[in-house]
C-alpha cells in the first residue's frame, strides 16, 4: 500500500487533533501516531521576542520536505506522514510546524518524526526573522542543527 504523505506550507494555523483524525480516519492498521509541534517562543535567552516572521522558497521547500518524507517511508515502516509548516508572521505561543508520523508500532513513528524534524531544520529552505525591542534580526543557523541531521546519515 502506498503510504499517504501530506505536505502543506501555509499562512493559516493548523489543528493538531484534526490533522491526526485525518490520517487515522477509517484505518485500523495504525497503532501509533507521534506528533511534534514547533511553537513560537516569547524569549530567546534573556531577550523578549515579540514576533517571528518566516520566509520560504516556494517550490523548493515542498520538494525538500517531500524528498525527506520519501526517505522516511523507505527507512521505517510508517503508515502515514503529515508535515505542515507555516510561513508569515507569528506571535509567541503560535504554532510554527507540525510533523505527524503514524505506524503500527511506536518505534518507527518516533524515529521517522525525529528524522523529519532534524532534516527539515537543516535542509528545508525556510528562514526566521525575530522582532525584539531593539529591532528585527534574522535568526542565525546553529551548527547543532547540521549535526542533528548528520547523525541520520548512513555513509
Amino acid at each position: 500500500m502506498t503510504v499517504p504523505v501530506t505536505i502543506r506550507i501555509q499562512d493559516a494555523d493548523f489543528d493538531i487533533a484534526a490533522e491526526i483524525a485525518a490520517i487515522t480516519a477509517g484505518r485500523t492498521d495504525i497503532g501509533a501516531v507521534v506528533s511534534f509541534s514547533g511553537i513560537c517562543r516569547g524569549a530567546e535567552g534573556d531577550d523578549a521576542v515579540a514576533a517571528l516572521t518566516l520566509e520560504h522558497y516556494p517550490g523548493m521547500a515542498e520538494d525538500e520536505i517531500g524528498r525527506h518524507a520519501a526517505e522516511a517511508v523507505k527507512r521505517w515502516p510508517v503508515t502515514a506522514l503529515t508535515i505542515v509548516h507555516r510561513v508569515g508572521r507569528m506571535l509567541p505561543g503560535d504554532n510554527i510546524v507540525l510533523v505527524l508520523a503514524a505506524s503500527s508500532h511506536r518505534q518507527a513513528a518516533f524515529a521517522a518524526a525525529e528524522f523529519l524534524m532534524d532534516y527539515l531544520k537543516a535542509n528545508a529552505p525556510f528562514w526566521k526573522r525575530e522582532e525584539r525591542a531593539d529591532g528585527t534580526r534574522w535568526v542565525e543557523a546553529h551548527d547543532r542543527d547540521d549535526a542533528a541531521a548528520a547523525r541520520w546519515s548512513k555513509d
Partner: protein
Amino acid sequence: MKVKYFAWVRERVGLDEETIEPPAEVATVSDLISWLSARGEGYAFAFEKPGVIRTALDRTHVRPETPIAGAREVAFFPPMTGG
C-alpha cells in the same frame, strides 16, 4: 538564467529575483558569486562572506564548485532556520 534571493541576501541585494546572462567564463557557483559581487554595493555586501551563502540550482542544494551550465534557476540564501 533566473536568480532568486532569500532572507538577508534578498534584503542586501535589494531584489527578490532577476534574470541574468553571465559570460561564458563564469562556470561554477563560486564564479557566479564573484561575478555578481562585482555588480554593485548591495551584491558585494550580500556576498561579502561567500562561505556563508548557500546555493540551489534548479531547487537542489549544490556546492560552490558545482558547474552552472544548463541551470534555469539559481537561488542564493543564508543557512536555513526553519522548523
